[in-house]
């Protein structure tokens, strides 16, 4: 016996979730197995579809942010995941996403990219952003005040404000660095702040004990001036960020927003939790904690895959499979001194013979390694060395797919959603 389903999705990031939800919508019985937590927990929580033109476009248009990502889809080079699955899948993936997160995210009202200020003071073109970041958009003309905390590294409010001014945002922006009330240790964990604010625990300030949200607002108020909106690093609660923001806004008499941060990222963690809740609501069976390590094939069909539960080997069977194990960071693609490889199915990954050709000279050049991944056909089936589908019932989605550079294009989550939608729908319909 094995554990049996119609569709088995391997992975635990945006791509896997989108695949599982899409497959589930076709009525298939779906299981998702993920090894570790996804890169989502380190990502900003922004859902980028296409922020900059991919390789192939001329240099000038590559430096300007894209305002209409859908309009730019036609220009992606052959082999790029968006070219493989087409605009319909990009829209399908975003629809899945919007349904899954509901009003916790904004941006779905328009095809155009929003411009979201980030922790470094850059402005990022993105398709969907957390509701908590909404009051911070760079297209909004209200003056903004940014608050940083000494102990929260990775966000220097003054520097971020300087950068934003230099970027020419259409409003005045100032920053100040304060001490978080209650004297937490200097390297207190992000979750410690979030927990304090969620629970609104009493904290000691000047010998007086008062609720955390109130104490924080009090401290910020003294610096506020006439600013109409206040940006905090993204530490404002984990379980109920909306409540924390509302309370702070009330006490401050100003709108409150969160500035997306680098890893580790609370918005990324909240998103990951929401997506897993959506899986549960949709009736997808989810197992996390063990890697899939092996495959048993029957001709050109995957018959079963083997997961390693600590040291025991457990077989899983399905009609259709989706591989959504991520790229080099997610461990869906691995490398050693000899080669870059896909560890479960050993799918071929095009790569220069000589590993010194994996990189270009300059840090910001087009590095081949950034686009490493499995090539897929238009049904997202990974191709073998002869450009034929490696298995008729295996599809791939997300960062394990090659042919795009998510960091340069700002397309990470968008590609995961689009390929996840295509792979999941295809798998579900054939299961």
């Amino acid at each position: 016996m094995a554990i049996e389903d119609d569709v088995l999705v391997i992975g635990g990031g945006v791509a896997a979730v989108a695949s599982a939800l899409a497959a589930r919508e076709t009525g298939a019985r779906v299981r998702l197995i993920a090894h570790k937590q996804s890169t989502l927990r380190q990502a900003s929580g922004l859902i980028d579809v296409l922020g900059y033109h991919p390789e192939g476009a001329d240099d000038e248009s590559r430096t300007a942010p894209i305002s209409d990502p859908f309009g730019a889809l036609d220009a992606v080079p052959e082999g790029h995941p968006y070219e493989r699955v087409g605009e319909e899948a990009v829209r399908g993936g975003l629809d899945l996403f919007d349904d899954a997160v509901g009003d916790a995210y904004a941006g779905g009202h328009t095809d155009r990219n929003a411009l979201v200020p980030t922790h470094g003071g850059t402005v990022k073109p993105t398709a969907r952003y957390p509701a908590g970041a909404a009051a911070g958009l760079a297209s909004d003309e209200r003056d903004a005040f940014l608050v940083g905390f000494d102990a929260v590294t990775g966000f220097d409010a003054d520097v971020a404000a300087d950068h934003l001014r230099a970027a020419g945002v259409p409003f005045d922006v100032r920053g100040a660095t304060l001490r978080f009330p209650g004297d937490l240790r200097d390297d207190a964990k992000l979750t410690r702040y979030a927990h304090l604010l969620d629970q609104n625990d009493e904290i000691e300030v000047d010998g007086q004990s008062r609720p955390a949200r109130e104490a924080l607002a009090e401290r910020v108020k003294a610096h506020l001036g006439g600013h109409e909106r206040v940006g905090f690093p993204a530490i404002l609660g984990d379980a109920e960020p909306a409540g924390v923001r509302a309370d702070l806004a009330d006490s401050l008499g100003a709108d409150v927003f969160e500035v997306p941060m680098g890893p580790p990222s609370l918005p990324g963690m909240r998103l990951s939790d929401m997506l897993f809740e959506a899986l549960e609501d949709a009736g997808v069976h989810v197992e996390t904690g063990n890697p899939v390590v092996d495959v048993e094939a029957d001709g050109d069909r995957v018959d079963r895959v083997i997961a390693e539960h600590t040291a025991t080997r457990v077989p899983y069977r399905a009609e259709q499979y989706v591989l959504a194990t991520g790229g080099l960071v997610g461990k869906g693609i691995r490398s050693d001194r000899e080669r870059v490889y896909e560890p479960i199915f050993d799918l071929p990954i095009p790569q220069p013979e000589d590993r010194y050709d994996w990189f270009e000279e300059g840090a910001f050049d087009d590095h081949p390694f950034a686009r490493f991944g499995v090539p897929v056909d238009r049904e997202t089936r990974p191709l073998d060395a002869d450009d034929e589908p490696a298995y008729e019932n295996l599809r791939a989605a997300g960062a394990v797919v090659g042919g795009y550079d998510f960091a340069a294009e700002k397309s990470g989550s968008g590609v995961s959603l689009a390929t996840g939608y295509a792979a999941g729908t295809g798998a579900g319909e054939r299961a």
Partner: protein
Amino acid sequence: MSDAETPDDYDVTDDSPAATGDDEFEPVQVFPESEDMDLRPGSDDCYKCSTCDTNCPVAEVDDDFPGPKFQGPEQWRLKRKDDHDIDDSVMKCSNCMRCDSACPSEVPLSQMHNTARGSFVENQMDKLSPEYIRNRILSNYRTSAWLASKVPRLSNFMMNFGPARWVMEKTLGVTAERDFPEFAEQTFREWWVERGGAQVENPDKRVAYFHGCYSNYNTPEVGKAMVEVFEEFGYEVMVPDQGCSGTPMFANGMLDDARRHAETNVENLVAAIGEGADVIASCTSCSLSLRQEYPELFDIHGIEDVSEHTYEALEYLRIHEDLEGELDGSEVDFPDLAYHAPCHARNQGLDGQAIEVVDRIDGVEAEDVGDSCSGISGTYGWKAEKYDLSMEIGEEMFEHMEDAEGDVGMTECPTCAMQMGHGTGYEIRHPLEVLEAALVSEDTSSA
């Protein structure tokens, strides 16, 4: 399993020159096993993303705890260079192992914590301190339970007798806030002997039941359910002699104690495996210990064999039987359940299965109360200085339990069950009891 290499000829707890083959044993050497148990690859894999820190339930509530990234790879690196002491904060880690499953880079965090704690206790802790004595008593629960089970009624009375609890709190730091678990009138093993051992013989389908301390002394109904369900599927159940799985000992850095028990367990389980059995546990911390912590920490002949043959009970049936087919159409009258997945089930990838299985049975509704930690983490929540933190960690789970439809809890872990009961007043059941009601009991009431 971690990337780190396991020791090949000695374990971390036996520091005698003969055992180490190293006659220049350096008593303050940190991680004394480091030449043989090379955690370096694991440590080098850390790229400081801090995902582990954001998953640590203790760091979330305790401002003095620097978190898993420091306890694991950073401290490990630091200690290799200088002959620093191990930071005493390592004793605040509850060994929930959440950091372990979180790390995207497969850094063997819990293995690092376990070895660091072992070394801290061995080299830096005062063996006469109340804390050491308390930890030793708590982690050797099996010994106390064995004694107590001889006179269960008296023990039940004494253990929760006010003045005695007051003394325990004041002198030993065992919180008086909690009720000690009740000892059963008849232990599981006594029941096993009384019924005449196995009632199914089957050379082709055999399992060796690792019941652990708790289902032996405190909840024999779980052990009985396990036996009856497996016999229903035609398995011959063996019940080898056994000690403690070691879980509470790892968490308290008592690696010598743990090793002693591990030796007994491995020897007896290897013998059972030799007779064709797989090893089954009903407690997820026990199965995790046998599967993962044993080979990570000890080198005992046959230990890998035990690791490779160990399963959690439901998991085993899902793999080897058509459990769903059997359950489809079954009907029981069981109260609605609020299910909490123990951290150690999560670590084995078993966090979703109880709900999935129970969902097939008509007449039971089980709802997952979310992925927070229960907060008790074995002996952690029994320590007077940790009690409040433990309840703060558990708060989210309590709230979700109250929100859930059912007024009865369900979990695989005995200490999580204690915490769930303590925080909500609910009665707590084990998934195997639900299976027994669906598959075995003639009388399908919730008895």
